[in-house]
């Protein structure tokens, strides 16, 4: 079939006659698509970042609960868990939070033991002695230190503890390390005044990934006051948190979709007298209903496709170039240390198809139904209004 340029020319002329209204419509339509697209791009990129990097997280984290609350776990639990077949190393971890009321920043302090290897994403090296530390680039940006400076923290008994900064995590790892302060485990234990036989939680290495859930069940059975969290649960949490059909972005998504539906509803219920007269004239000139519908479909497609492409380009610019400044406050809340995004530029084609379906198809329907009603009426009645 040869593409008929004259029909397209007619549709463009028809749109151009109401150019103010149609340009305004395309702008609003594109902004709605940009909002919906930004939510989809941001949540998908965050989800990919989480589920791709956290595949290296511990297979099982074991917490202890007492009175329904998280409590410190006895290190002796590690020996019990190590006795289960298929379990490798069980490492007690010491970590916690530290709040600075002047900057109003929450830091996450993590203790590690005997890690010597050099990492690509770390400038400097991990602490080799109890008075050394490594910080995330968010901490460096908030407090302004460099490698070689002293980090001075005040513990719960108002005692000054000094740590020499031996490394800063690269900004590329901000989404993982932004608020981290990594110390040697013994130093952090002393800083938190944590008794020797206790730890914050245990990490459990499992040789065969298919046995993880079985071992988690065993841990919960033999240590009833424990709460094992498997890596699968961890990934599932982020999968559902950044799923566009649930989680924190649903509210934005639903609001934008609602705004679009109001726009479409307005189109569906209010075909103008001028448009009705135009349809009546076309019918009087000998056009059939299918011809009128074809012309209206072309007009609607031109508006929808222009708005869809413009909206997606805006969403791309907003999320991947500007760092999603309009959506970040939703994630940030009252956080002071918030990472600058270096998001993976990944796009889910399924989501884009869904976006096209939920925006373009209703708009086409809302344009065609009133046009069909007008076109199937008597031309004389339609022209008289």
């Amino acid at each position, binding site marked *: 079939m040869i593409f008929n340029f004259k029909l397209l020319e007619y549709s463009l002329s028809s749109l151009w006659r109401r150019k103010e209204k149609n340009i305004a419509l395309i702008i609003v339509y594109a902004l709605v698509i940009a909002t919906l697209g930004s939510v989809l791009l941001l949540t998908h990129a965050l989800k990919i970042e989480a589920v*791709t990097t956290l595949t290296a997280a511990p297979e099982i984290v074991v917490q202890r609960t007492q009175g*329904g609350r998280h409590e410190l776990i006895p290190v002796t639990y590690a020996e019990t868990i190590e006795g289960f077949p298929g379990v490798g190393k069980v490492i007690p971890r010491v970590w916690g939070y*530290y709040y600075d009321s002047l900057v109003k920043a929450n830091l996450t302090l993590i203790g590690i033991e005997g890690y010597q290897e050099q*990492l*690509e994403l770390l400038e400097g090296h991990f602490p080799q002695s109890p008075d050394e530390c490594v910080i995330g680039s968010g901490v460096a940006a908030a407090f302004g230190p460099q490698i070689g400076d002293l980090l001075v923290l005040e513990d719960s008994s108002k005692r000054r503890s000094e740590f020499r900064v031996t490394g800063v995590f690269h900004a590329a790892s901000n989404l993982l390390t932004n608020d981290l302060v990594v110390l040697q485990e013994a130093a952090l234990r002393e800083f938190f005044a944590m008794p020797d036989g206790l730890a914050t939680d245990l990490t459990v290495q499992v040789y065969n990934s298919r046995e993880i859930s079985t071992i988690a069940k065993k841990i919960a059975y033999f240590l009833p006051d424990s709460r094992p969290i498997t890596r699968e649960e961890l990934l599932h949490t982020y999968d559902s948190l950044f799923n566009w059909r649930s989680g924190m972005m649903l509210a934005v998504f639903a609001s934008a979709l609602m705004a679009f539906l109001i726009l479409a509803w307005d189109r569906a219920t209010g075909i103008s007298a001028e448009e009705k007269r135009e349809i009546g004239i076309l019918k009087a000139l000998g056009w059939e209903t299918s011809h009128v519908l074809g012309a209206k479909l072309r007009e609607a497609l031109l508006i929808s496709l*222009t708005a869809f*492409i413009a909206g997606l380009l805006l969403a791309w610019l907003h999320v991947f170039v500007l760092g999603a400044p309009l959506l970040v406050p939703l994630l*940030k809340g009252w956080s002071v240390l*918030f990472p600058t995004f270096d998001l993976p530029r990944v796009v889910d084609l399924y989501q884009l198809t869904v976006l096209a379906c939920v925006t373009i198809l209703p708009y086409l329907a809302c344009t065609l139904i009133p046009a069909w009603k007008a076109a199937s009426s008597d031309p004389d009645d339609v022209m008289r209004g």
Partner: protein
Amino acid sequence: MKRSVVCLTFLLAAAALLSSLLLSAHLHDQRYPEKWQDKRDLVAAVGITDLSLSSEARYTRHVTQADLFSAFQDFPAAFEHFPTGSMIPPRPFGYSGRVSFESNQQVRP
């Protein structure tokens, strides 16, 4: 005829720009697999379980480690327990700084 050619050219150019952005992102990711491996090495070394995204509360900083089962426990997507919680503002802060850095050359207060 002229207007339709301009319109089609514009639409095709915009579609091509969008497709090239999507494709370039896909290719970029495939070209640098070591970027992900570096991050996984870091996660394994420090034992990271969560994204460092919202540090305002412990249950948003460590979403996967938050508990759901305690009475009156806060957790992600928790309802406000008491209406007064949305009326009473947080207490004023700023008594003292507990974190400071001292450079080799000068000591900061």
